[in-house]
């Protein structure tokens, strides 16, 4: 899966958790949780969904590196490569 596909997956799973957002308006380099109202449960569901879609392990100790869409995509791309 290339980066564009991973990005599309990330945004589609995000829309499932927060259906009210327009993913086209998100700043991909800004912290996601500053732009989208995600509580810790939403965040966990989002990561679980990405784990299931991409078969990637995401240890809790890595959460701090997953702030923005760009960071998520880079992290997941490295893991799926």
């Amino acid at each position: 899966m290339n980066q564009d596909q991973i990005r599309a997956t990330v945004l589609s799973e995000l829309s499932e958790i927060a259906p009210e957002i327009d993913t086209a308006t998100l700043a991909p380099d800004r912290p996601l949780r500053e732009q989208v109202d995600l509580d810790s449960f939403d965040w966990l569901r989002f990561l679980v969904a990405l784990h299931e879609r991409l078969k990637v392990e995401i240890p809790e100790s890595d959460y701090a590196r997953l702030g923005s869409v760009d960071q998520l995509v880079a992290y997941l791309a490295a893991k799926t490569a």
Partner: protein
Amino acid sequence: MIEFKLPSLGADMDEGKLLEWKIKPGDRVTRGQIVAVVDTSKAAVDIESWQEGTVHALLVQPEQTIAVGTVMALYTEAGEAAPPPQAPAPAQTLAQPTSAPAVPAAAPAPSPAPASSTTAAAATPALARTRISPAARQRAAELQIAIDTLGRGSGELGAITLADVERAAQSLSVSAPAMPAAKPAATPTRADERALQMRRTIAAALSRSKREIPHYYLSEPIPMRRTLDWLAAENAARPIARRLLLAAPLLKAVAVCLKSLPELNGWYRDDAFTPSAAIHVGVAISLRQGGLVAPALHDVPAQNLDQLMAALGDLIQRTRSGRLRSSELSDGTVTVTSLGEQGVQAVQGVIYPPQVALVGFGRVTEQAWAADGALMAMPVLTASLAADHRVSDGHRGARFLTLLRELLQQPERLSEPT
């Protein structure tokens, strides 16, 4: 004959609109069975029966708005002969609220009274359960699309989502452009009205709280190193889908501490406090479209953290998709609000009547912490208590926060049922 009445849906929900019946005349009903779905200003609620019997007649029709306490159905008891089907009595009790709605702006709609109980029954066949999000339900109503024409949705467990409704509207407008069904929503929308209605119901309950309850407020900074380290170690060994959030040990700790402080757990009604042996913790859950619901997690001390985590996840999901059970809205004996998620350091809460205490958690922040003659960096959580002075004093409230602080220094004690 047993009268089944619309049960309480919590202090701020005094009426509801029947969406559908889950029973029909002749069905046997057991305690706890979901018999109807009622829409409140906050959510669609699965109404559970607290009586047992055989359904004789359904007295309220879908789309009718009724007050809490209205007789919705009549059951016959075991061994009781059903009265003749033309019995006129049920029609007279139709939609007679036994308590007035708190929100005068939303008086019950005039009810088309069925000529007899049998016609009411015939008019309301048991409908298959349709899973649909509140937003989708509103949009479908705006677009005048019948929900039962939408089929299985694309959401979780086949739930119909807003996108499904929009797609259906698109295809309707393509296939039949002249149909009025696909006209764009007029302004103001039903969603706006609903948001306004929810704001009114929250205002009514919390105005009552501030008017009647002499609140006192306490807060305590709690060092969280031990609990967070324990949680991190626990989660490192778990697959992602089974990881615990801090909310689970916090809710558990609150419930365990309340066991030794009964004056903070229960209901104040009719000038008297009744402590509750059971500890059902209401969890303040914000809704995506705005507003707040605080449904209860039942018997929290008896659950281990995995059970609690699963129950909490389920409760949040169902709150946001609008599928709560009536007992969850009426059973809470205390409420917990966690505003730390939004980044604030502390909360001074408003008690949700008839409860007598509300526990608030802020955000965990790293702070300079002096202990044992040394200065260190410490993750700190500010816990607060708003409690009812008619029932307890600051001394007992302080005891609660002290117990909570101590328990969170021994997180391994939280993992098992107590």
